[in-house]
């Protein structure tokens, strides 16, 4: 089906005041347009611009959610400013991330990092979650700093570093040192194990072994939480590193 921008005038106007329970059949032309613009950059840009323009104060929460779902499929750097403006907004932050996390543009990552530096509490954890989902390496220094922050944020930061698992992430986790917070310490152990697994998959056996041995030593010294499971996980890892027939 060819894209027809004019045919969206009424559905988009109706969408502004949409609330849950409303007639979603009215939006079927928008749904179809999201599919239709796949191979038509000009049409896609037009649709994106029109959807993005709805992310304003005069649009209902349900409508913003609908728009963010669509932008999660067709959004580009062009939508980032309007989506980023929603990141500090408790009601809409998640749906803004729903789109931004999927937009493969440097601007989307930059917006999430910008928000990571300003929002607090659960919203900050949300930014960490999306940056981890994107495998964003530029946020590693920020995550490293958060390892020393409040417990819930530090746990999320450690989880994210484990997901990103680049050499810089390994370094940040190693440099974090000890902590008396058991939840944070456990998350750091898990993240380091994830990093070691990634290194092993890349064939970097010596680097992986170093992490496993470090964790095994810490577990033996009783300086990690859940020492038994850490010791076993590290032992399994060391054996895998020794097994030259294992996938690498």
């Amino acid at each position, binding site marked *: 089906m060819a894209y027809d921008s004019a045919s969206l005038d009424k559905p988009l106007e109706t969408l502004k005041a949409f*609330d*849950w*329970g*409303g007639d*979603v059949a009215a939006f079927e032309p928008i749904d179809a347009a999201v*599919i239709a613009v*796949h191979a038509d950059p000009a049409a896609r840009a037009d649709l994106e611009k029109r959807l993005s323009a709805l992310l304003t104060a005069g649009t209902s929460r*349900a409508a913003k*959610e609908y728009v963010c*779902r669509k932008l*999660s*499929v*067709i959004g580009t750097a062009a939508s980032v400013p309007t989506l980023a403006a929603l990141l500090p907004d408790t*009601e809409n*932050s*998640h*749906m803004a*991330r*729903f789109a*931004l*996390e*999927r937009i*493969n543009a440097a601007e989307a990552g930059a917006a999430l990092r910008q928000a990571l530096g300003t929002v607090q509490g*659960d*919203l900050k*954890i*949300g930014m*960490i*979650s*999306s940056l*981890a*989902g994107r495998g964003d390496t530029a946020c590693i220094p920020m995550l490293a700093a958060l390892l020393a922050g409040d*417990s*819930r944020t530090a*746990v*999320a930061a450690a*989880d*994210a570093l484990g*997901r990103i698992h680049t050499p810089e992430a390994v370094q940040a986790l190693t440099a974090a040192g000890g902590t008396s917070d058991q*939840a944070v310490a*456990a*998350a750091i152990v*898990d993240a380091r*194990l*994830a990093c070691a*697994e990634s290194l092993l998959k890349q064939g970097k056996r010596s680097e992986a072994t170093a992490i496993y041995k470090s964790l095994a030593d810490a577990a033996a010294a009783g300086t990690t939480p*859940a020492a038994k*499971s850490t010791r*076993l*996980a590290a032992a*399994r890892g060391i054996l895998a590193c020794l097994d030259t027939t294992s996938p690498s």
Partner: protein
Amino acid sequence: MGHHTPARPASAPEGQTTGTRRGFLKGIGAAAAGAVAAPYVITSTALGNASTPPASDRIVMGGIGIGNMGSGDQNAFLGRSDVQYVAVCDVRKKWRDDGKGRVDGKYGNGDCAAYVDFRELLARDDLDAVHIATPDHWHAIMTIAACRSGKDVYLQKPETLTLREGPLMIAAARRYGRVVSGGSQRVLEDYRDIVHPCWAGEIGAIKSVDISVGGPSQPCYLPAQDTPPDIDWDLWLGPAPWEPYNSGRCDGNFGTGGNSWRSYIDYSGGSLTDWGAHHFGGTIFATDLRELQPVKATYHPASADGKQAAYASVSYPNGVDIYHNRPNELRPATPSVAHGGSIQITGDGRAREAKPVPVYKGTGGIYGDFIECVKTRERPFRDIELAVNTMTGPHMIGIAYRLQRSLNWDVAAQQFTGDAEANRLLDRARREPWIL
């Protein structure tokens, strides 16, 4: 992943359990050894008998998501003499109370602890294993958290909601050496009519399979209702987008045509992955594809005159094609074997050497298989890796339907090739504070 200290003050368990069972038993043992004067009574239940292992040898279990299918899973484990069931968790008070009631009724006491927040259940150090039967949007987070806390997991199907979750769940299971079994009790038991001819080599090399089952899930825009006091709505939603409460949004009935969480995209893959987990699971087991993932999903558009609906298929690297809802007139006229009207398998007809059909370990179906593996540390019949492989096909089909185009899948990279939009649908942002 989301393994944080609970955001809210930890709620006290509603049961009366305060210490750990093992700690309690250890205390009894120490007292007996010391021949103290106090009259400790060790019951025959604790010591075991010819048919019941002593308490110290039983697998200590709890359940998360204890309504509908969760209650069925609970009853299966609760009925086993080698399981000691000690805790339930559900965000709904009714399910929680009912679940606790079943346990307490079984044991004739009031000891079963009941939790609203799964993190509190997983924080117990006396649990060996948990079963999880929440809506699908919780599966990955809870399974990974359970592995990290040292628990084995029996996880209801469909094990994954997104393609990206699977490798992370497998990694967590392997990292901590946990037994993680998928939960499709039908795969081996309901599909014998197709499994045995295939494994016996009677129909030759498998060429194609036709599966008839419902389609993918849809967005949910049900109207807001007052949130009843007996559900923790924020925790029910968890990592899913915030939406207003509606009983139809969260109903656990097995329908997928609306007014059930299985119908909606934030919580489920729809019938395609719900009942599809059984039909695809049975098919993939019968055709011995469990170790493989498809390399392509093909979208077959509806006919121009609208008489023929769109359908889709996935292709495996060994040449097997599995079709979803292919019109009857396009199917092989005489399939080699069939499971009613839902699965039709066509082979090349050249008989092959028979292979022994894998079976459950232990006794008691897939539940017994899981418990046996908890004891022996073997991999279960529906090991999480096999379950993830199984669900990859339905997820790929769902994305192909959504984008209305064909997709190529790079198994090693776990990405679609040459389709950035499709790769956007590998996963979704989770609502704060949840992280995978």
